[in-house]
C-alpha cells in the first residue's frame, strides 16, 4: 500500500514543487500576485486531499516521493555542473576538409 502512496505522491510532489517555484517566479514580477496565487491553489489542494486520504503511516511514503523528486533534481543539476566545469561535457568537432588545417 505504501508503494501506491509513493507512486501517487510523485506527480503530486512534482506539481507542488513546480507550483511553489512558479509562485516565486511570478511574485517577483510586480503586479502578478493574483496570477501566482491562482497557480498555487490547485497543487496545494491536491496535496491536501492526498494527505487527508492517506493515513499518517503513509505520509512517510508521500514524503519519500518528495525526497526522491528533489534528490533527482539535485543529482541531475550537480552532475551537469561538474561536467560543465570540468569541460568533460562537450561535443566533438569534425572537419572533413583537411587541406587547410
Amino acid at each position, binding site marked *: 500500500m505504501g508503494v501506491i502512496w509513493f507512486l501517487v505522491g510523485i506527480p503530486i510532489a512534482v506539481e507542488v514543487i513546480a507550483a511553489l517555484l512558479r509562485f516565486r517566479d511570478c511574485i517577483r514580477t510586480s503586479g502578478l500576485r493574483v496570477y501566482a496565487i491562482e497557480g498555487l491553489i490547485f497543487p496545494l489542494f491536491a496535496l491536501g486531499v492526498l494527505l487527508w486520504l492517506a493515513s499518517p503511516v503513509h505520509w512517510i511514503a508521500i514524503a519519500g516521493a518528495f525526497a526522491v523528486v528533489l534528490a533527482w533534481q539535485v543529482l541531475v543539476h550537480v552532475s551537469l555542473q561538474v561536467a560543465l566545469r570540468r569541460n568533460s561535457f*562537450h561535443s566533438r568537432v569534425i572537419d572533413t576538409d583537411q587541406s*587547410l588545417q
Partner: protein
Amino acid sequence: MNWTLPLRDAAPAGQALVGGKAVRLGELLAQDFDVPPGFVVTTEAFVSHFMEAGASGLLDGEYPTPELLTRVANHQMNPELVSAIRTGFASLSDGDPQYLCAVRSSGADEDGTWASFAGQHATYYYTREDDLETRIVDCWLSAFTLEARAYRREMGLFSAPRMAVIVQYMLPADISGVTFTRDPTGQHDDCMVIESCWGLGAALVDGRVSPDAYFVSRGDQSLRARRIGTKRAKVAEALLDRSGSRLEAVPRHLQRVPTLDSADVARVAALAMRCELAFGTAQDVEWAIVDGRLYLLQSRPVTRVASVPTPVEGRWIAFKPVLENSDEPFTPLSVDLFRRVLSPWMAFIDGRLYVDYDAVERLLPSGIPKRTLIDALLLRDPGTSIGMSWRAAPKLALIAITAYLSSAILFARTRNLPRAVFDAFRARCEALVADANLDPPTTLRMLLAPHRLFAPIGELVLAANVSAGRYFILTGFLTGFLERHAPGFDAEHFAALTVGPKEMASREMVESIAQLAAVAAEKPAIKALILANRFDELPHQLVVHPDAGPFVSALEVFMSRFGHRGTREIEIAAPRWREDPTPLFAMIANLLGETTGRINVIEARRAAAQAALLEHLPSRVKRAFVNLVARRIRYFAALRENTRHWHPLAFATVRAKILSLERHMMVTGELKCADDIFYLLWDEIEDLSAGRLSWRHVEERVRNRRIRHLRRCRLRPPLGFNLETDDAPAGHVRLLGRCASPGRAEGRARIIRDPAADGEIRAGDVLVAPYTDPSWTPLFLNAAAIVVETGSYLSHAGTVARELGIPCVVDAYGLLDGVEEGQRLQVDATAGTVLLLDPEPKQAALTWA
C-alpha cells in the same frame, strides 16, 4: 652588382635573381599582357643586406632567432641600394611624390608548379616612397616567418630562402578577382571559375569577403552559372593607419550587385585562357579592373586542388532546430564556444551541428523504423504510427520515468506563466556583461545552462523554450480529433484557430517595424531619405535632419527592445541590429512602399475559424474541448516564440564580451583586422592576450580558416552523414516540400538569401529563402507565400506564417537550384507543393566547394 631590374627585363634574368613571380610577370609583359609597370629588387640585394647586417647565418639555414631578425630589420640599408631603389621608383612615378606602389615578395623558389607560396610571403599595398626601404626589408623577413618555414619544410625545400621584391604601380582597383582556368576542386573540369569582389583582391585571397563566382565554359567561354556573394567588406583604400581595421564596409546597395557583367566575364575569361596558352598549363590568374581597363596582376599554375573530403565515421543527422534558423556554417570561435556547452552526442561537422544518430537509436526502444526515426529527428511528420513491441516496454518505461523525473518540474513550471517573468533575462545578461571577470565561454555557459538549482524561470529561457515544444504534440492530437469528429473543418481554419495570442514577440516586432514605417511616413522628408536606399549613410543623416526627431525616438524605443536581434543571430560573429541597423532600414523601406495590411486580418481569421467550428462541430462539449486544447496550443506557441526572442540576447551578450576583447587586442596590436577574432579558438585568444602567441603565429591560421569557412558556406549542408535522409534535389517543374502553414497562392519568385543585403520584396511576391530566422519576419508581410529550403512546422517560418495566414512550404530541398528570380510560382502549401509555372530549361545546377 645587380641591385634592381625593370620588371620587363626580369624574365631573362632568371628565377634565382628575381624570383619566380617576377620571372612570370616579365614573361607576361614581354608577351604584351597589360601588367602594371614596376621594377625588381634582386636577390643579390637581399644577400648583400643580410651579410652587411651580420646575419649571414640566415643565408646558410641558421635558425632565425628574434635577435638575428631584429638585426636585419634595424640595419641601415646600403646607400647604393637605396639609390638604385629610388631611381627605380622615379622611373615609375615621374617625380610624383604622392605616387603609390605595391611591394610584393618574389621568392627564388616561389610560383613553381608545385610550390606557389600563395599568401606565405608578405605584400604591402599603398606604399609611399618614404616607406619603400622598410617594406622591402619586411618582405625579405617574411621568408623567415614560422608559417613560411613550415610551408618550405612541407614542400621539401630545405635550402635557405632567397627573396627578391617587386615594386609595382599600385592599381586603384575598382574590381579585382581570381580566375582558375580549371576548377581547382576538380568537380567541373569543363569550367573556368572566376571569383571577384569590389576593390583590391587581397580581401578575396584572404577569405575576408564572400565573392561573386562565375562558372564559364572552357569550350565556348559561355557563362554557365553564377553565384552572387554578399560582399560586405573590401580592403580599405587608406591603409596608412596601421592600428585601424584593414577592411571597410561596402555600401549596402552594392553588396549584392554583381561585380562583373557578361562582357566583363568574357574579357576576364579570355585573359585567363591567354595566360593558359602562354604557359601551357592550367593557371590561377589574378586580375583587376580600373576605369574599365583590365590588368593582369599574376598568373601561376593551379597548385592547390581541394582534397577529397575525409569520410565521417558514424551516422550523424542534422540538428534541425538550429539548421532551420541558419544553414550557414558557424565560424570557428562560435563552434569552439558552443561545443563547450553542448552534449557529447552532438558534433560540429564542417561547422554545422549534427546529432549522433547511433546514440539516439541505442537510447530508444528497438522497433522504431529507421525511416520514422529519421523523420522525427528532422522534425517531419513521420506519417505512420510507431509500432512498439512488448519487449521494449521495460526500456521504454525506464526512459519515461527518467525523463519525467528530470523534466516534469520544468514542464509544470512553464505550464502557465505570464510573459513578463522572462524580462528577468535581460537583467541577468546585463549583469554578466558588466562582470569583467567572466570570460565568454563561462558567460555562455551561465546563460544557456541552469547555473543553480531551481534558478528563476526567467533566467532559463532555453529550457522554457524546449518545454514549449509540446504544442507540436497537442497540435497533432487536435488535428486527429477534428479529422474524426469534424471532417469538414479544413486546415486553414485549423491554423487560424491555433495561432498565438497578440502578445507574441515576433508579432510585436513586425508591428513595431510597421509603426516605425508609419512614423517615417508622417514626415515626407524622412520617408524620402529612407526610400533613397542609402542606408549606410542614414544614421548620420538622421542625426542632423530637423524632421527626424519622432522617427529617431521611435527607433531608440525599438532598439531598446529588439536591438539584440539580427540576421543569423545564433552566430556569435553576426552583427545585431543595434550595431548595424541597415537591414532594419531596408525592412522599413519595404513597408513604406506597398503593403498588404496583413496584421489586421488575424483576428478576422480567428473569428471565421470559430464560425466554421460551430458549423462542423455541433456538440458544445466537444467544441469546448477543442477550444481548451486550442488555447493551450496558442499559449505554448506564444511561449516558444517569446522565449526565442530572448535567446539572441544570450548570444549578443557573449558577442559584446568578445567585441570588447577584440577592441582591446586591436589597440595593443595582438589583432590586426576586425572580425579576425571569430576565426580563432578561445585558447588561442587567451594565448594571444597573455603574450604566449603573437599575431604572426596566428595570421596564417586565420587566413586558412576564413578560406575554409567561405568554401563551407558555398556547400549545401547535408542532412545526414551515412544516412539516407531523403534530401534529393527537387525536380524542374514541381517541387515537393511539407506544409507549415496551409493555403494557396501564386506570384513571382523573390529569392532572398540574406535579408541584411537584399531585403526588398513587393506585395504579392513569393518569398523563396534557404531558411528563415526572426529577422526575416518583416519580409513576410508582403509575401503572398513563403517557400523555404530548410524548415519545419515548428520553425520560425512556419510559426509566423501561420500567425499571418500566409501559405508556407518548408523542407523544399533543391529549391534554390530549381527556381529562378522572377519565375512565376504556384504554391499549394496545403499539399506541400510548389509548381514552376514558366519553367525554363535551367543549366545543370553547379555547386562549388
